[in-house]
């Protein structure tokens, strides 16, 4: 995997065009993949806007990375159970989100957050520990996490709309799509018996605290 990544990095310019074509073919419908003709992020007007954009993208990337690891933790425990395929499906969608953010970060030369190893461990631990409490635990974790992520995306959408909706059209479209996906995961979690009240309460509190701290922590520590 490292060698593949290494060669991918070294041969980057040669692979730009074919990758673009491959990506557009791989498009599974709703998500409009970026071609090299334009980028999701408009070119920054000034230093301030650039920093604001970079901060936003960094926090979003950290969030998707964390979500990815949470699902990985859940799969590690519940992978071979009945809920395995369901969790795998949700995980695949998160992987697509993460890939999209990786692409945006690379294109816009955004620094990734330095706390990535922390989110790696914490996410995996959270996913695995909730999955150990069974399917209800895993679903409760999913519901709580997805709810916080959706709130986070909503506040970003609001901020972008307040500042300049026309300028950020593509970015807004992308974030809205991701938020809708996260809401779907949230609803899926609810459908699959997450409503065992005590478990749900515990996780809602813990996860909301955790995720608020994750996003605030990333914002504060990465500025």
């Amino acid at each position, binding site marked *: 995997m490292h060698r593949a990544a290494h060669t991918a990095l070294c041969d*980057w310019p040669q692979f730009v065009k074919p990758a673009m074509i491959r990506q557009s073919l791989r498009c599974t419908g709703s998500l409009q993949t970026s071609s090299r003709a334009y980028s999701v992020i408009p070119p920054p007007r000034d230093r301030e806007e650039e920093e604001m954009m970079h901060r936003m993208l960094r926090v979003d990337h950290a969030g998707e990375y964390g979500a990815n690891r949470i699902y990985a933790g859940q799969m590690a425990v519940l992978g071979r159970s009945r809920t395995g395929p369901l969790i795998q499906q949700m995980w695949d969608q998160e992987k697509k989100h993460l890939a999209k953010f990786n692409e945006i970060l690379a294109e816009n030369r955004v620094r990734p957050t330095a706390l990535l190893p922390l989110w790696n461990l914490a996410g995996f631990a959270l996913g695995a520990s909730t999955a150990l409490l069974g399917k209800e635990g895993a679903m409760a974790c999913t519901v709580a996490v997805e709810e916080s992520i959706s709130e986070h995306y909503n506040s970003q959408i609001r901020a972008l709309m307040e500042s300049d909706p026309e300028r950020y059209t593509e970015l807004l479209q992308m974030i809205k799509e991701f938020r809708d996906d996260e809401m779907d995961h949230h609803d899926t979690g609810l459908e699959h018996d997450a409503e065992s009240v005590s478990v749900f309460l515990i996780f809602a509190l813990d996860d909301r605290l955790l995720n608020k701290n994750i996003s605030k922590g990333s914002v504060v520590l990465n500025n």
Partner: protein
Amino acid sequence: MAALLRGLRAGRLLRGLPSVVAAPASTNQQCSSLRRSFHCAALRLQDESKSDKSSASSSSSSSSSTTHHEHYQAHSSHQDTEAASQQDPDPNSSDREQDEEYETEEQLQAQILAAALEFVPLHGWSMEAIAAGAESLGLSSASTGMFPNGSGDLVLHFISQCNSKLTEILAEQHNQVQLGQAERKKTADFLRDAVETRLRMCIPYIETWPQALSILLLPHNIPDSLKHLSTMVDDIWYYAGDRSTDMNWYTKRAVLTGLYNTTELVMLQDSSPDFKDTWAFLDNRIQDVVNMATTAKQMQSTGEAVAQGLMGAAVTLKNLTGLNQKR
């Protein structure tokens, strides 16, 4: 300070005239009458200078004539707005005027510092060099007052100039590769060439470079010098093809920073012809890094293989002892 600047601008304006050279504010009277007589000619030049201004670069040679016009335009527009200041001043033009002043002041500073670089081998990285530079441009040596952090400003200016040159070179190479006119270099070679190119730019000032480094380590200069270093390292990795978005981003840049700093220190003490020893040192360090990366990869794959072996042994044991059966 503002009066000093106006005096400086007046001095630049009238540089070509026999009557006035660099002068403080006392010559303002003469300047204003001469300025009005030049006003008609300036109107013709204003259009050109407006278009020049929008694409003004900071390289001293091309902009010396442009700044002359800009200084003049700044003055004539300043005069006009002063004369008409009783009426409602247009906020746009006053903003633009402030921008013009800001730009020309920065450009002026850049020009003085660029001229001062010639005197660095003589005076070191100090205020004397800046004063000598200012004088060589025909300005009074009192213009060192524009640089409260004199030697720091000079060194930082030189560094940012070198970094811009490096970025241009790297971008040019990148374009050539894109156009297929050049072969893509391997990462190790690319890094080696980039570091060597950047360090060679210091060679003209190598005698005084230890002084420059110690200036950069002063507490009030550290934030700026770190910023320049980190943007340079980021640029080199970007053009080397790094698009990582995980911890590799940090480790790669840390490695290259270490590489660059140690090679720079070695270069200071190198007395071999054309710094052969320094480039040999650089080669060896890059080889070390490559070896470390290979070793890390090997360790990881070995670790994975061992883990799989252990899992297999555990499953076998469970089967043998019958623990795996569901009874």
